[in-house]
């Protein structure tokens, strides 16, 4: 067995030298005969970075974490400011936008299954063209991570640790980033497997705990201010969904079939559902005005929980559990930046850049935003314009280049198994429900001003559509996974 074939080719592998060699030696002692590369990798537990894989569920939850977690802290206030009581309808537009990004990544994934977005850019746009595109994306991601750092630091500094210097809080956070920067996306996916359910499921007990403060009858009626607030709310919410682009960095590690599209779509809907529930809670408990005027409505919302005199101040407990989930988003963006930087050197072993990048981000964090308020303003007023203005042309450009390159190389695509209609139908239902949700908003806006009951009915229809669409998308993921497993077994 040629050791260089496995480890020495300069591709970069995720385990350190010592573990690598000790495990390999131990394996050789037990199995002195030659065996295949896959067997060696499997038996030694060595997973090279270019073979990192995350499964469909991890992808769904990772997508939802990326979109939902820290946005829960930074976005609700701006959203309530923009949309008032109609804030609950603010997720549908961004969901549709995120689905466009899903389709774009799916197309890339089909054409270049083993490559990530940055590598594809170099392949299709050449050395300089690819570099320019990647630098643009890199700049976007750097801005996003700066926003995250400043937002989270600002949040902690305003609510919990008011005297701790923000620089120290940022340093602590950067140390976490540097730690995860030494691992692969698999590690964060596994961590997310634990913390995302805590965050997501935690939203529903919150609903129960603040039910005594929830006054539906005090809420302002839906749809009475016309389309403008809903439109503005959807624009502002777009800031949270532009992050989807970051997933492009992990394309090589994601499922290679239709499962990719279906999983990521489920993640987007999961995030939209969680966000909508929390926004509804916010305006039901605090009202749209207070939600818009406090910096962190989610925190104030949890602060309202008071179950007898003993179960008070639960926000500290809730946020200490939620905090790791909130940090996941930053870690994902950090890893994406590392992968982007590594793509310039044609080497997937990005770990070497983790510490320098961490220090760079720490140093530039003080120069980027003047505290949490400027982050919120940037997120509410600048990002909703920047995201579609940069991402849509970029996606179009990359897609055209990919199609052109593929046509030029005239590569024949592999025959793929046809997915049965009984699975595809769930996807069709999801799209139909999203269409009905959009339609319910249109009907609500059209008639809600004159007939308030119709507006309320449309709001319920919208909520049900979002809920059922999320459920159906989950069913689709499960059915497709079962189908894929069956196909694999048949092949074997």
């Amino acid at each position: 067995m040629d050791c260089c074939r496995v480890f020495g080719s300069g591709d970069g592998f995720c385990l350190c030298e010592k573990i690598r060699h000790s495990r390999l030696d131990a394996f050789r002692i037990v199995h002195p005969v030659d065996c295949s590369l896959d067997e060696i990798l499997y038996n030694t537990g060595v997973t090279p970075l270019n073979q990192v894989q995350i499964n469909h569920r991890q992808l769904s939850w990772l997508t939802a974490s990326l979109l939902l977690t820290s946005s829960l802290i930074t976005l609700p206030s701006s959203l309530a400011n923009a949309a008032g009581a109609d804030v609950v309808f603010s997720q549908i537009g961004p969901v549709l936008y995120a689905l466009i990004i899903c389709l774009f990544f799916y197309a890339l994934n089909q054409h270049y299954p083993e490559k990530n977005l940055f590598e594809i850019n170099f392949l299709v746009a050449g050395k300089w063209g690819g570099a320019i595109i990647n630098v643009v994306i890199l700049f976007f991601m750097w801005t996003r991570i700066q926003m995250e750092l400043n937002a989270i630091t600002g949040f902690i500094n305003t609510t919990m640790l008011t005297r701790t210097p923000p620089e120290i809080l940022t340093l602590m956070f950067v140390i976490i980033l540097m730690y995860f920067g030494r691992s692969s996306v698999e590690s964060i996916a596994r961590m997310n497997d634990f913390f995302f359910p805590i965050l997501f499921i935690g939203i529903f007990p919150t609903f129960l705990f603040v039910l005594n403060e929830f006054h539906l009858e005090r809420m302002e009626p839906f749809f009475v201010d016309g389309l403008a607030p809903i439109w503005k709310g959807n624009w502002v919410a777009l800031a949270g969904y532009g992050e989807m682009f970051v997933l492009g960095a992990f394309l090589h590690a994601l499922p290679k079939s239709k499962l990719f599209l279906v999983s990521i779509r489920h993640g987007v809907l999961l995030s939209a559902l969680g966000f909508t529930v929390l926004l509804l809670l916010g305006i039901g408990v605090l009202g749209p005005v207070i939600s818009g005027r406090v910096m962190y409505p989610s925190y104030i919302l949890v602060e309202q929980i008071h179950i007898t005199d003993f179960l008070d101040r639960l926000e500290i407990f809730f946020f200490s559990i939620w905090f790791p989930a909130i940090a996941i988003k930053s870690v994902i963006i950090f890893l994406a930046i590392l992968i982007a930087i590594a793509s310039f050197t044609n080497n997937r072993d990005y770990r070497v850049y983790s510490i320098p990048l961490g220090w760079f981000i720490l140093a530039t964090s003080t120069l980027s935003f003047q505290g949490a308020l400027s982050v919120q303003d940037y997120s509410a007023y600048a990002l909703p314009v920047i995201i579609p203005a940069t991402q849509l042309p970029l996606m179009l450009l990359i897609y055209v280049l990919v199609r052109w390159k593929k046509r030029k190389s005239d590569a024949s695509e592999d025959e793929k198994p046809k997915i049965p209609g009984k699975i595809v139908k769930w996807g069709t239902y999801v799209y139909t429900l999203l269409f009905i949700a959009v339609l319910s908003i249109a009907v609500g806006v059209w008639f809600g001003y004159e007939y308030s009951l119709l507006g309320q009915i449309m709001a319920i229809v919208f909520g049900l559509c979002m809920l059922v669409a999320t459920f159906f998308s989950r069913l689709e993921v499960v059915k497709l996974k079962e189908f894929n497993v069956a196909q694999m077994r048949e092949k074997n």
Partner: protein
Amino acid sequence: MYKRVSLIFFLLCSPMLLTGCWDRVEVNDLAVVVASSFDKEGDEYRVGVQIPLVRPLGGKGQGPVFYIDSEKGKTVREAVDRLQHRMSRQMIFSHRRILVVSEEVAREGIRPGLDEVARLPDNRLTANMIISKGKAIDLLGSSPQFESLSAESMREIVKLPFVLPVNLKDIAQALNKEGADPIVPYMEVTEPQPKGEENKKEVQLVGYAQFKRDKLVGVFKDKAADGSHWLRSHFVTYMTTLEVQEGNTKRPITIRVMDGQSKITPRIENGILSYHVKVEAIGAVQESMLTEDLRFQRNQDVINRAFEKDIKESIEAFVKQAKEKQTDPAYLGVLLSRAYPKEWKENYSKHWRDTLGEIPFHIEVKASVERLGQITENITKETNRD
């Protein structure tokens, strides 16, 4: 070797991080504010704080169990800052559950004083506000018998099952909304009868302070205060005493309203706005001075009618007082905006207070006294064996 050295270096350095907790405060250095008061002196606020003294409370010492101090300032926080200059312990407001605002401050407007409550993270929107008759600091200085601290006494009173639950968030919501005004518990200092220990003074709930926007304009007391229970989002139980005609005399019977439901529906018919209030109530007899046996349907019917009349009168009293002062403590505007958004926006929202006084109310009450208690008539009543 390199890794071991790194590990040892890291372990040696890590304790240094423990010294850097900027938000660390020793419990011994804290003064926990449990209640504060806002009074007005000239153009400035006089802010008072009530702080429990740990040693007497723990039973290890003699003397007063709390400490009250106050200071003036242009803003609430300026006054608090001045207070802090003469306190060896750092005041924290995380456990403040009661804010007492004097009638005088409330008449000028409570909005400015509420800013710091939401701005600083150690304050909580779930705290209760109380409007005091007279000076607010007098309520803090009262010395109730049952509780060590007057703040605790006030908090327990506003949490009693017959008191409308109103916290700072509710007040803020009513103030920032068109078509709604807050009502806030109104308390005074009183002396127990007969006077017991010297200087012992109790706090007492008188009614609910009536606000027009953020300014106090009146107090809902007695019947009107009872009526307020029917026009809020959730019904809260209360007790009422009816006068029932028996022969030539009127005899009292006390009833607790155990359960109730009210539905307020705005209606616009032929361009005229009216509110329909539909009330259903269930009562329980607490004490009866009637001579008749309450097991008989005819006697129950008499009580039921009196009970319905009492509820209707209480709602009318509440509505009348609200109309007179052009206030909307029942969220009538919000209800209208929900039912008729177009009409509210185009015709009513701009002149809502002027319109309030002219709106007719149709009150329909269905009440029955379903619980008679353990007896149907007084057990000492002489039996007529003839």
